[in-house]
């Protein structure tokens, strides 16, 4: 039976060829992933002499616990009318509430203040056992959602422009590759320099010319500007990549469809909504997921520019490992990031896997 023999030989060859790739991936990905899951349940420290204990889900509890408590107003008796009323700060004129530290629970782990907000005339405080991490999750989600949204809109716009026929289209596509190809650390440094907090920086120079900010905007040290600055840099760096992915999707849409629609009297906008968007959907979905997964694990940009002033999930993981030597704790952060990305990855396989699984 030569045919069967050939099939067996083919199978054996296939396994041999797959072996190197799988061995490498087991060493660098699967095995470390296993150890990270295990270490996340311990209080292991890096390069320490302390004994390692199994602590169950203690790390996760510490990372994710948060609470919202109402802050009671501070009452004083007014001297004029004999009635209790809320104390008002004589300088700012704002109402005074009880200090958050007195209200937030302290046992078994202390909750620290993350933020305060006012709702229906009542003051609330959000406390977390690790406010830095909750803040990092918030920063990362805000960064991901807004930057991916802008990249998609801008990327689609650029792709549509470049998709039309014009001289120098090749040069244009080459220019689009440049921001993508540049080292992220390098582009972060260039933007860091452009965003300097005085008029030595480009943005303050230009904005001051238009009378905005007086050349004193601290883009990278003032909290309200930090995440928006990161978003602006990321949008610049990755919009071209998004545009290229969408451009590839646009180019497989047959021209005849547009011609037929034009004969039927459909305008450009109608053509875009009825032909371009639906046919671009697969490419759009893939590009969105690629970018979302990438943005969720953002590290280089935050680490280079913000350091430990403001964290993303990934930079917080890094600082817990290198700065704090808390291996167990940083492993737990890694697992949380993994779970978030895994959820997106399932979506990705649903979208893409079907295309290739048919054989």
């Amino acid at each position, binding site marked *: 039976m030569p045919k069967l023999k050939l099939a067996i030989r083919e199978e054996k060859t296939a396994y041999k060829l797959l072996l190197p790739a799988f061995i490498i991936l087991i060493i660098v990905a699967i095995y470390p992933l296993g150890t990270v899951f295990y270490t996340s349940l311990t209080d292991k420290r890096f390069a320490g002499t302390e004994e390692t204990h199994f602590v169950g889900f203690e790390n996760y509890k510490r990372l994710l616990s948060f609470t919202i408590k109402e802050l009671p107003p501070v009452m004083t008796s007014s001297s004029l009318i004999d009635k209790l009323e809320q104390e008002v700060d004589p300088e700012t004129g704002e109402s005074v509430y009880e200090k958050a530290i007195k209200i937030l629970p302290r046992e078994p782990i202390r909750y620290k203040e993350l933020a305060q907000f006012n709702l229906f005339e009542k003051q609330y405080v959000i406390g977390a056992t690790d406010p830095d991490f909750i803040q990092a999750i918030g920063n990362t989600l805000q960064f991901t959602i807004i930057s991916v949204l802008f990249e998609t809109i801008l990327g689609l716009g650029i792709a549509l422009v470049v998709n039309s026929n014009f001289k120098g289209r090749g040069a244009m596509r080459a220019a689009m590759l440049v921001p993508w*190809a540049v080292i992220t650390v390098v582009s972060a440094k260039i933007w860091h320099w452009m965003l300097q907090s005085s008029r030595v920086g480009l943005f303050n120079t230009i904005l001051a010319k238009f009378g905005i900010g007086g050349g004193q905007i601290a883009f990278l040290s003032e909290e309200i500007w930090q995440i928006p600055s990161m978003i602006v840099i990321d949008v610049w760096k990755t919009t071209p*990549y998004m545009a290229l992915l969408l451009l590839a999707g646009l180019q497989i849409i047959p021209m005849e469809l547009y011609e037929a629609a034009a004969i039927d009297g459909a305008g450009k906008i109608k053509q875009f909504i009825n032909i371009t968007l639906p046919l671009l959907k697969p490419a759009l979905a893939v590009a969105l997921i690629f970018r979302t997964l990438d943005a969720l694990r953002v590290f280089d940009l935050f680490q280079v520019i913000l350091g430990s002033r403001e964290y993303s999930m990934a930079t917080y993981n890094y600082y817990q490992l290198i700065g704090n030597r808390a291996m167990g704790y940083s492993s737990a952060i890694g697992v949380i990031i993994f779970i978030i990305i895994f959820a997106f990855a399932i979506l990705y396989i649903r979208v893409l896997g079907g295309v290739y699984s048919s054989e």
Partner: protein
Amino acid sequence: MKIAQKVLFCFILAIIIIYLLFPFYWALNSSFKTEAQLQMMPATFIPRDPLSGNISFNLINYKSIVQNQEFLYGLINSSIVAISTTLLALVAGSFAGFAIGKLRFRGKQPSMYIILAMTMFPQITVLTGLFAIINALKLEPRFSMILTYMIFTLPFTTWVLATFFKSLPTSILESSQVDGATFFQTFYRILLPLTAPALVTTGLLAFIASWNEYLFALTFTTINPAARTVPVAIAFFTGYIARQEPFGEIMAAAVVVTVPIVVLVLIFQRRIIRGLTAGSVKG
């Protein structure tokens, strides 16, 4: 009407190009400025003399970075790491890609899914685990980087090469079998030469990805600064006249490391675009 449309189109194109390339112009502009010129307010769009206002280019930043040991070592380290990573990923990736793209075997579907899932593997998750292994085994940082960069290069090369092998006609495989060649002989004598274009594409992408990598490079060289790659060296730049962050030198270094990549990208742009968009569009 037609002319107005054309003008508008060119205007939009110009804005896009300025948006994409202006930061590089700014880096180039700043790299030719001395410390005094960099501190001028408002910032000038061409290097100018602080007193007279005349145009004045200065090469001091470039002189300083070619004497900067850490930067030069960084270039060497980066080259070693990126080239080795690319070669290793191409060898292991073309083997696996051939098996998945052309051969029939049990367990093909699961292996395909594993590879596809691995292309999205978050490196940050295994950072702690890898760091522990590297420290326990006292692995050399450059070697550690080459090995761990497989996480993001190998699944990708395998995947792209598998789609490429799949597109080659099966008749080549069959006819060489009739001639009595083994699958392996068919692979490296006949199919591998045919895949040269795909190898160049995936190789370039793997090279750029490893050249740019920061997270692992930063972590694994904490104990051994001599092994720092270019991104880490630039992130840690301290100038000779280190009053504050030496942005002039950083911009010069940025120009030096960006130019080769840009040249590479311009030469191979078609291939790179094809490789980047490989997995995202059907067919």
